[in-house]
Each structure stands twice: as structure tokens, then as C-alpha cells.
């Protein structure tokens, strides 16, 4: 049975809320400015509850099962953080509160800024970007402005590897710069020859910078990272790191120390803030000294107060205030970012401490390598070796080829859909684009060995079915709330709004 649309549960005169009568005299309404009709549904409270609970049951989620969606870091979202987010001093705090009325919240933001800086080796951090893509946008705008201020506005090329996430090239265009794509070499790494060529001759003076993902979107550590950074910076370009994959790097390497000038964090990946079925996120950005004055604002600044504060707990030792960096690229959204995500990330870092975060990364990488070994022989593992043929380990995720030479009708998508029948969320499909039939698998550190064994078993069994009963895969899923959808129809005959929501309906 499908769940009806909310409008189908509507009956005139029904209501799902209990509101107070006005306790003030009423004022005349300006009739000429009023609307005639408000086509919202009329549904009782219990019916609304059942409707959304039943809808929730049509979803797969981390709370219900393993969610190995590569590049998305679908780790457990701690429940205590949800409780914290609902404390009245955080949930009911106005963003335009006077600073003396929100010192607790500003302290939290200040600490988070400095912890994120410490984790990645950057001088300064701004928490304002709302998601990874907005962090990228901030980074590229900063790089752009940096060159303009140095009298080199002609630097307008950003190099982007062909394995990059789609937000990287889209960001470059949005910032008004030009994207130049760099091919990968046979090992899935940045092709150094191509990089040298891009940084030579006339092009060299036009390079604004390069965006790189670390580990790469294939889940691989770039062995030549030092050379790549050196090469781009030697011609005057700046290095941007897409930090979506930070779960592989905590206490393993600090991107700022490697020489990156700027990166974004995905608090909704590495730092466990929930994805919410598509958002919200937080894409905080970190920068080194040359870009710190360009950060998007406001950031929180701490001023130590005079006196021996340590002696008396009641007297605050510092005052926190908003600060707009002197050459700031500006505001990226109203107010100061997705604070609800900041506080969850704060509580998460609090739970682990520095050594704990090292263990997070270790176990994330352990889980990925373990699962990869379990699948070896069953699925092709592209880029399994370094350029000189040596064995290599993956980071927190890895790619398998979701196709088999002896099962020509079966595609990565079919394997994914069949995994649903086995009770798992599929991996990321068809990304990165440089691997045909890619399945990008990221188990995360919060999955147990037992569950990884079960996933490996399911994938093995599907590999067998692909040869013996391919139709099972092509028809999958058969156990989900709906079967495969007619996506072409959705795009051709656009139905984006329930007819009952239209005026006069």
C-alpha cells in the first residue's frame, strides 16, 4: 500500500493544533491586502503523526542498517548530540542576541574553530559555510580575491582532477573562474606530466590554484602529493583541499602542514552531524596565514580579560565577539552558519579527544581495507597498485568495478539494487566518473566486523547471481516499498506539486 498524500487525508474543518485565543483586543485586518484562499490540508494530530511515521518507515537509514555510501561518511550519529541540540539555551537562542547574551554559544564556536584548525593544521577557521559545496565556494572566492589583491587578476584557472566531485568544477564556474581538467594517470593519481604541462608556458601565469581531494575520490592517498603542491605553488597558484574525506586523515596527516592553503570540512561527514535526508550540513573552511584575512565572516574572536580569572570560577576569563576579517569575501549566509551542526560536532570531538580521533581514522581505514580484502577475487579492484606495481592500501573507502566480463547484462546499478534486497544500502554508484561502473564503498568506523562480514557475504552472493540468475539483479529490488522507478516519466511529465495545493483547488 502506498501512503496517501497529506492532502488526501484532509477534511474541511479538521485541525491538528490547539492554539490559544487572543489575549489582546483584535485589530482590523487590511482587507485589500488579504488572500482569499489558503490551500493547505486539514488533518488531525494523530493522522499527521501516523502519516509521517509511516513515511519514515519507507526510508533506509543509518539507524536501521549499514549504509556504505562512498564519499558520504555515513557513520553513527550520536543520540546525546541530538539531546544537546535541543537544550533551550541553544535551541531557543536568537542569532542577533547581543554578544553578552550568547557568550556560551560563542565560546563553543570559538573552541570548534580552534579544534578544527588543530586537526587540519590551519591558522584560522570560519564556521559559516552551510555545506561542503559552500565551503568550496568560499575557498575559491578567497583564492580569487587573493590574486586580485596582489595585482594578478589574470589568474583565473583552477585545475581540477577528472576524478573530482561535481561540486568542484561547478564551484569554479560559480566563482567566475575557469576550470581546467587534469587527467588521472594509470594509477588513478594526478598525472604529473599533465600537471607540469598545465603549469608551463603561458598557462603558468594564469593558474589561480588547484582543487584536490585527499584521499582522492577513489579512496587513495596521493603518493606524490608533495610534488603536486610544490608544482602548483611554484607558479603562484594556491592549493585547495576538498576535505570531504577527512575521516581518513585525523591524526594521520594535517593538510595545512602538507602545504594546502585552504580546505573545507564536512561536519556532516567526519564529525557525525546527521545528514537529515539531504541536509543540513556544515562546510567550515580552514586557511593558512596568507588567506586568513579573506575568510568568510563573521568568525568568533576571543579576547582574554585582565585579572586572575583562574582564581575565581565566577569571573569569565575571556570575552567572545564577532569579527569580520579585514579582507573578507563577505557573508555566505545570514547569521553565522549552521550552529546546530557546530554544537553537535563540538560534542563529538569532546567525546573522542585527539587520540580518540586517531582511532576513528584508524578504524575507518581498517574497515575499508578489511572489506576490500574480503571482496578481492569476487569484484575487480581498479587502481589496486601504485604506478610501479606495488601493493597499496586504501583510505576510508575504495572502489570496486560493479560489472563482470562473464555477466555482460549486469551493471553497477543492478548490483546496488540487489543489495537492497539483502537489507543493505547500496554504495555510491557511478562516482568517481573515471571508473566505469564504479561502486564506491565506505563502511565507516562505526560498523562492526560482523556487519562487514555480512555485507561481504551479500556481495559475494550477488556476484554469483550475476552469472547464474542475472534477472534477479535486473529486476531488483523486489523487497523494497517500491520497485524501480520510471525516472524518464518523472522528467517528461513534471509533477512537482500536488494539484490540491493550487489556488482554487
Amino acid at each position: 500500500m502506498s501512503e496517501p498524500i497529506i492532502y488526501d487525508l484532509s477534511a474541511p474543518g479538521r485541525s491538528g493544533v490547539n492554539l490559544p485565543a487572543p489575549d489582546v483586543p483584535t485589530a482590523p485586518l487590511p482587507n485589500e491586502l488579504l488572500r482569499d484562499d489558503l490551500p493547505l490540508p486539514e488533518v488531525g494530530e494523530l493522522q499527521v503523526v501516523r502519516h509521517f511515521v509511516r513515511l519514515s518507515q519507507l526510508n533506509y537509514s543509518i539507524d536501521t542498517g549499514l549504509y556504505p555510501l562512498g564519499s558520504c561518511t555515513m557513520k553513527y550519529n550520536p543520540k546525546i548530540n541530538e539531546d544537546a541540540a535541543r537544550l533551550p539555551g541553544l535551541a531557543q537562542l536568537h542569532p542577533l542576541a547581543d554578544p553578552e547574551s550568547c557568550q556560551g554559544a560563542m565560546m563553543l564556536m570559538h573552541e570548534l574553530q580552534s579544534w578544527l584548525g588543530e586537526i587540519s593544521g590551519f591558522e584560522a577557521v570560519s564556521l559559516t559555510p552551510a555545506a561542503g559545496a559552500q565551503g568550496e565556494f568560499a575557498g575559491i572566492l578567497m583564492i580569487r580575491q587573493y590574486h586580485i589583491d596582489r595585482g594578478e587578476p589574470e589568474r583565473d584557472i583552477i585545475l581540477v582532477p577528472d576524478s573530482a566531485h561535481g561540486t568542484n568544477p561547478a564551484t569554479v564556474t560559480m566563482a567566475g573562474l575557469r576550470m581546467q581538467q587534469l587527467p588521472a594517470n594509470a594509477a588513478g593519481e594526478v598525472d604529473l606530466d599533465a600537471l607540469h604541462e598545465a603549469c608551463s608556458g603561458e598557462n603558468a601565469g594564469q593558474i589561480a590554484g588547484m582543487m584536490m581531494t585527499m584521499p582522492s575520490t577513489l579512496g587513495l592517498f596521493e603518493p606524490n602529493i608533495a610534488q603536486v603542491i610544490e608544482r602548483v605553488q611554484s607558479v603562484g597558484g594556491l592549493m585547495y583541499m576538498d576535505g570531504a574525506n577527512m575521516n581518513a586523515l585525523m591524526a594521520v596527516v594535517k593538510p595545512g602542514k602538507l602545504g594546502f592553503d585552504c580546505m573545507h570540512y564536512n561536519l556532516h561527514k567526519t564529525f557525525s552531524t546527521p545528514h537529515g535526508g539531504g541536509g543540513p550540513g556544515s562546510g567550515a573552511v580552514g586557511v593558512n596565514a596568507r588567506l586568513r584575512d579573506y575568510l568568510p565572516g563573521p568568525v568568533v574572536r576571543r579576547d582574554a580579560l585582565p585579572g586572575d580569572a583562574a582564581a575565581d570560577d565566577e569571573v569569565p576569563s575571556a570575552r567572545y565577539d564577532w569579527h569580520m576579517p579585514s579582507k573578507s569575501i563577505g557573508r555566505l549566509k545570514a547569521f553565522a552558519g549552521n550552529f546546530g551542526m557546530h554544537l553537535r560536532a563540538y560534542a563529538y570531538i569532546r567525546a573522542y579527544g585527539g587520540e580518540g580521533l586517531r582511532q576513528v581514522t584508524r578504524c575507518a581505514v581498517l574497515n575499508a581495507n578489511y572489506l576490500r580484502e574480503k571482496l578481492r577475487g569476487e569484484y575487480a579492484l581498479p587502481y589496486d597498485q601504485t604506478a610501479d606495481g606495488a601493493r597499496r592500501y586504501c583510505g576510508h573507502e575504495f572502489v570496486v568495478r560493479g560489472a563482470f566480463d562473464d555477466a555482460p547484462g549486469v551493471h553497477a546499478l543492478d548490483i546496488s539494487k540487489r543489495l537492497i534486497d539483502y537489507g543493505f544500502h547500496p554504495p555510491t554508484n557511478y562516482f568517481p566518473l573515471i571508473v566505469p561502473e564504479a561502486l564506491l564503498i565506505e563502511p565507516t568506523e562505526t560498523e562492526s566486523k560482523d556487519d562487514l562480514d555480512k555485507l561481504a557475504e551479500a556481495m559475494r552472493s550477488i556476484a554469483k547471481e550475476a552469472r547464474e540468475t542475472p534477472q534477479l539483479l535486473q529486476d531488483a529490488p523486489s523487497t523494497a516499498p517500491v520497485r524501480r522507478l520510471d525516472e524518464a516519466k518523472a522528467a517528461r511529465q513534471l509533477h512537482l506539486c500536488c494539484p490540491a495545493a493550487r489556488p482554487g483547488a
Partner: protein
Amino acid sequence: MSYIPHTAAETQDMLAKIGVASFDELFDAVPAGQRFPTLDLPPAMSEMEIAAEMLAISEANDHAGDFAMFRGAGAYHHFIPSVVNHMLLRGEFYTAYTPYQPEISQGTLQATYEYQSMMCALTGMDAANASHYDGATSLAEAVTVALEVSRNRRKKIILSHAIHPQYREVLRTYHQGKDIRIIGDRGRGELVDLMEMLDSNTAMVAVQYPNFFGQVEDLRRLADTVHASGGLLVVVANPLALSLFTPPGEFGADIVVGEGQPLGIPLTFGGPYLGYFAIKQRLVRKIAGRIIGETVDVEGKRAYVMTLRPREQDIKRERATSNICTNQGLMALAAAVYLSLMGKNGLRQVGELNYHKAHYAAAQIDRLDGYSVDMTKPFFNEFVVACPRPIAEINAALLDAGVIGGYDLAQHYYHLPNHMLLCVTECNTRAEIDRLVDILEGLR
């Protein structure tokens, strides 16, 4: 260790299966000189300690739970029915990712479709997307659509100064890399002044409704004039005000954007909020971000899916007009639950409560010596009060008495010293309003 389930024995088994003796070997591709730094962070805490620490931080803030709240200016303290939070806490909703696999994401997809539908109902528009980051970025994305519609031939963007100052800042941040002119908001321009700036180079005009000062203006003539010049009219609307006032779709807006926070989303110090974005049918393919459409599965069963996907960054890459990927999905769910509960009559009732309480407060304040409110222009739940003293002084005195006062307009409008923007919602009781009025009276 906190949220990691591995036992020591399992870890050893797994390392053995991989064929390494220690974790460290897994990282041999990382440059040796930079490998394994120490992170200088505070030590790990137990759950009990985290709970205590978060409570202490919470209590170090003055919030609407303890104070009478009269501040709005883009973020509003409204009643949120208990059901909304319970639905947001369903793990199946909040721990899911973007619905890339529609067969196991129908909950998110249908709820988002319902959200889109109810936003169409409120705004009077034909289609709404699944969300942008907030009201400000929705407005910035509207500029991109307007430029695209003119195929980047029109290069002028006209803004009313009565749009939220931070929204205008964000719009300028977004478009700093483009060869366009953004004008209109440097002075005190009225709607007629904006109309005079219109020409064949104008891609769009944007106004706020009710405007930043709380006033509800008749925008019909503006809409006609903008259209006569071939540009788009973009309206930044408070969706709760649309419970009462004519929806922008009815007077000709081409795009309606705004902040969905008043629809069941707590203040949370500025985010996460909900950028809504609604558009007319003829422009629907220009919309950025995720959008959910109805379709059927192979057995003909009704189902929902992300549609018009080829516009998006993962497919169009450097030719995409926006890089948005993660949006504010869960906040759209909050709005969907809120609007479902409120329904046609409840939302209207909330709108009227806001209206009546704000008008009561305004009338009381206008009567005070030294204070004045322009009662001749229609407003919703916010209004400007001319005060006898600097607002910082007034707000400090109010805070001492347990009241969070209005927004100091002089921060952004230099011609408005000693003016505050007050907000009164259904949450403010008559007793709170009377207390506010009493304190103001003593502050002449």
C-alpha cells in the same frame, strides 16, 4: 572507545586478514615526515560529562525559554507543536542521506514533495525546490536564475534597501565574480524609485514582503512595471505572513524565496534554517538544487524521485549554474510536518495572533511619550519604534528586566539612530507585552 564497536581481538583478526601487523602500515603512502601528528585537543569525555558540559554552555546564554523575546529581524521565536520535534527525531528521517536510491527513500521523497506542494500553496507559485541553505542564499540563487533567463545579456540587479541587510550582503558575496551591477539599496528608495531604475538591461528587481521594517506593501504596480521592462520580479517573503496576505504568485512574482524558519524550526542561534525557493512553471527548468517529482514504479505504483537531475553539479559539472549538493532537507521536513498540523485554519489563526498582538503592542508603545510607531501603514508582526534613547541603552535595561528587546536598526541604517525593529509573535503574552511597555515608559 566511544562509538567504535571493535574489540581488540576483532581488530587483530582484521589486520591479519589485510596482511599487516599494525594500523600504521595502512598509511604508508602518507609522506613520512608528516605522518601521525599529535592532536592537541582536550581529553576525551564520557557521555555524562558531555551532557553536563553542553548544559553549562546552554545556560550561559540568554534565551527565549527564560526571557520575553521581542527580537525578530529574520529569525523568529514561534510556537512549534510537539509533534514536529518527534517526527524530526525519527532516526529513519534524520540519519538518511540524500535520496539517491528512491526505492528505499520514499519517506524522504514523499515528505519533500508534500513540502514543495505546501510551499506552492503558501506562495501561489507553481513549483518549489527541496530547499536552499537559507533565505539569503535562496535570494542569491534567484539572481543566477534571472541572469540565465536573460541569457546573461541583462546585467543589472535592482534591490530594495528594505530587504534584510544580511541577505543583500550574501547576494553580493555570491556574485562578486560576475560582471553585473547591483543597485537600488544604497539609499532609502521607495518602490517608485526602484521603478525608475528599470531599463532594458535589468534582469530582476527584488523586494521583501513584508519588508525588513515589517510593512506590507501592495506590489501589483511594481510587478506590472518590472514585467513591462522585461525583467523578473523576485519577492523575498516571510512564509508565515502568507497565512494572511496575498500570495506573491497572485500579483505576478516570477520567483518567491525566503526563510522557512518560522514554519516549525527553532532559532538555534541562526541555523540550520530553510531557504525556500518557488518559481513559475515557465521557469521551472532553471531552478537550482534538488526537486522531487511524482512518477510510477515498474508496476505502476505511485512513487517519488529526484527529477530534472541533469541540471545538477554531479552531472553538469562546470556547466552547472549552482554547486549546491547538500541542502537543508530535514528542515523542509520540519516545515512539512508543521504545515500539515497547522493546516488551512491553524496557520491563519497563528497569522492573526501575530497580527493582533503586534498591533496591540504597537498601539501601546505609540502612546508613550517619546516613542512613536507609524500606525498608518499595514504591518504583520514587526514594526519600527522611534525611541528617545540609543537602542543599546534601552536593550540593556530590558535585559535586566528579563526582556530581549528589538533589533537596533542603526547597525545597518545610518539614518535610523534610536530606532528599533520590534517583533511580537503568538508566543508573547499580553502580560509580557504590558511589561515591555511599562519598562519602555520608564526609559524616556
